[in-house]
């Protein structure tokens, strides 16, 4: 499955639009990482635990979005966007959405 955030795919033609697909996830960080974060907020530096949380959330949201696209019979998702929202302290929602399409390689 091809996933891009452009509207078209170079060298391919969109032959069918299947509709919008999305995937979301809400992930909580565990307390150990919170304690580490409190320390980091004293001396500065990267909050690696939080970065990992974002990476995992993004992968999960994308995977769910691709799952939906697959169910629709698409072979690509174009114009993918991410959005996040805060639910409560210590949890954030990550959502990926895009348009499921069927693409075919363009004849030369």
């Amino acid at each position: 499955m091809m996933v891009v955030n452009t509207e078209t795919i170079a060298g391919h033609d969109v032959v069918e639009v299947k509709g919008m697909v999305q995937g979301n996830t809400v992930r909580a960080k565990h307390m150990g990482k919170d304690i580490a974060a409190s320390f980091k907020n004293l001396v500065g530096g990267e909050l690696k635990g939080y970065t990992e949380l974002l990476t995992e959330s993004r992968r999960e949201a994308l995977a769910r979005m691709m799952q939906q696209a697959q169910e629709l019979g698409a072979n690509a998702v174009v114009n993918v966007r991410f959005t996040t929202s805060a639910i409560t302290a210590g949890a954030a929602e990550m959502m990926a959405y895009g348009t499921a399409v069927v693409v075919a390689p363009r004849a030369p």
Partner: protein
Amino acid sequence: MEELFGLVVAVVVIAVGFLAGRATERNHLADLARRETELASVRVDSLKAPVGAAAGAPGPSLVCGEAVIASDAFKSWAFGLRNIFGGEARNFTTLFSRARREATLRMMEDARRQGFDAVCNVRHASADIGGNAEASAKRSKPMATCIAFGTGYKRA
């Protein structure tokens, strides 16, 4: 006596934050500059479609990078002061640009890992992980969160 002790602790915390935070920031900025030179061959733009993509190359694909950078005790304290008079909080401007450059670099590294040498349609997003939007100013832990993503492709 107790108030004096509290004051001493606060001063020590801010001093540690200042020294450690400054060292962390300096190292990070040097690291960013080094990696940016290293990845200069990866072209990054915010155009809607790839320009000059190679025909028959491995298909374009989403590339992402994210970074969460914490403030330090000194920056947070200085912001408290800044908040009284208003104006630009330069400490936090720098903090955010560090997070953004780090996320962008990770996105470029992701592109290179997948064999691409260009990224188009780059977007930046942010997230409120610490729940700072709801926390009171006193309880909030300032941190800069950045997600960068775009479409990686191979140039002709």
